[in-house]
């Protein structure tokens, strides 16, 4: 198994325990509302995807507000929990590279999911997002933050996972000239820095 498969395997094996852990952190309601607002669209008509929807913790909040929602995740076990939690939601098994991105998307949320994707693959994800989002559409993502790009293997009670650390200039350079940064926030949890970033698709 490569690191991608091992990471997905950890989410599959520990889906229930991780869902409990995510619940403890809480839904990103403020971010969801901010993302929809930044897209400047009436939420009722908004088309929203979620990259790495996990157990559907945020799907619930997004689906309540947006006209159309689809979440995807490579972990089948987490998707089972999401389908149970949000029966009205649409969920697809895929990773950020294999997902068939729909057209005319208003907002793509990615909460603590693309931190499992390396910089090379993240660049490919942004290319797909560039084609999928409408002009003015928003990519709203949160990542682990460090001054320098780094990868780290982490092992805990849930299993083994690989994480990548990003920073604002790096994400901006990966996103390229068709995205413009419209919101950024930095938080510290323990010794881990967390970066939240909203990027708007523009005419480049």
């Amino acid at each position, binding site marked *: 198994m490569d690191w991608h498969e091992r990471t997905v395997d950890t989410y599959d094996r520990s889906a229930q325990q991780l869902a409990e852990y995510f619940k403890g952190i809480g839904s990103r309601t403020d971010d969801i509302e901010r993302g929809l607002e930044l897209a400047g669209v009436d939420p009722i008509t908004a088309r929203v995807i979620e990259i790495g929807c996990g157990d559907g913790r945020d799907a619930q909040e997004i689906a309540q507000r947006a006209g159309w929602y689809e979440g995807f995740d490579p972990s089948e076990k987490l998707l089972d929990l999401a389908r149970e939690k949000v029966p009205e939601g649409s969920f697809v098994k895929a990773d950020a590279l294999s997902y068939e991105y729909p057209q005319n998307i208003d907002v793509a949320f990615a909460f603590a999911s693309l931190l499992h994707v390396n910089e090379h693959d993240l660049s490919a994800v942004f290319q797909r997002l560039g084609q999928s989002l409408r002009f003015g559409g928003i990519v709203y993502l949160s990542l682990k933050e460090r001054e320098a790009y780094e990868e780290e293997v*982490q*092992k805990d*009670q849930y299993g083994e996972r690989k994480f990548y650390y990003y920073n604002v200039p790096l994400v901006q350079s990966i996103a390229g000239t068709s995205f413009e940064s419209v919101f950024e926030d930095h938080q510290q949890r*323990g*010794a881990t820095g967390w970066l939240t970033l909203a990027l708007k698709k523009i005419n480049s």
Partner: protein
Amino acid sequence: MQKVPTGSGKIVYFVRHGQSIDNVSPVFQSPNTPLSEAGEQQAQSIATRLQHLQFDALMASPWPRARQTAQAIAQTTGKEIVFSDLLTERIKPSSIDGKSWEDSEALHIYEAWEKTIYGGEGRVENGETFNDIVKRADAILDLLKDSEHQSLVVVTHGFFLRTILARVLLGEALTGPLLKRFQELASIENTAITAFEYREAYNEQAQWRLWTYNDHAHFADN
């Protein structure tokens, strides 16, 4: 130092991180404090020593002082570091991180939290309680026990390492007041090695045993 004496068990060499800047400042230590200059030398010294130790895997707390110590060890031994949040230092209320001991409000919060880490009721902000930290010690011991590796070097922190020590020696008899005695009476130097083996003995079930305590012989090299 030689490998496992019995040849049948598993051995874990815990290493406390090198001296941090906050270790020698009159402040409540922050998770983000890096190694001091002396700490970097200690990290080099343990890294040189561990070059001569046969071990299979290297793990570390992701907090900078432990991460830097592990990076020094990775450099001399060629091992990849696997990080775990289960290895961090005790979690104090974040609101006092880096604050002066003379800040009376911070001191008040610290003292309230200290009661809870030693078994008192309640929780202070995001601070760990006695039950939290004992549960975390059990979780890392289980993870190490179930690891496919037979010998590991694990870089962690002083208070947490003394908690593991107390848990291994006292088991279910460990209480908040006894944890306090361990914290006050068991010294563990920066970068010292404290090793535990997991094995069967005298027809008993396999369990963790203390094998080496606070070994800092590498200080003599400096």
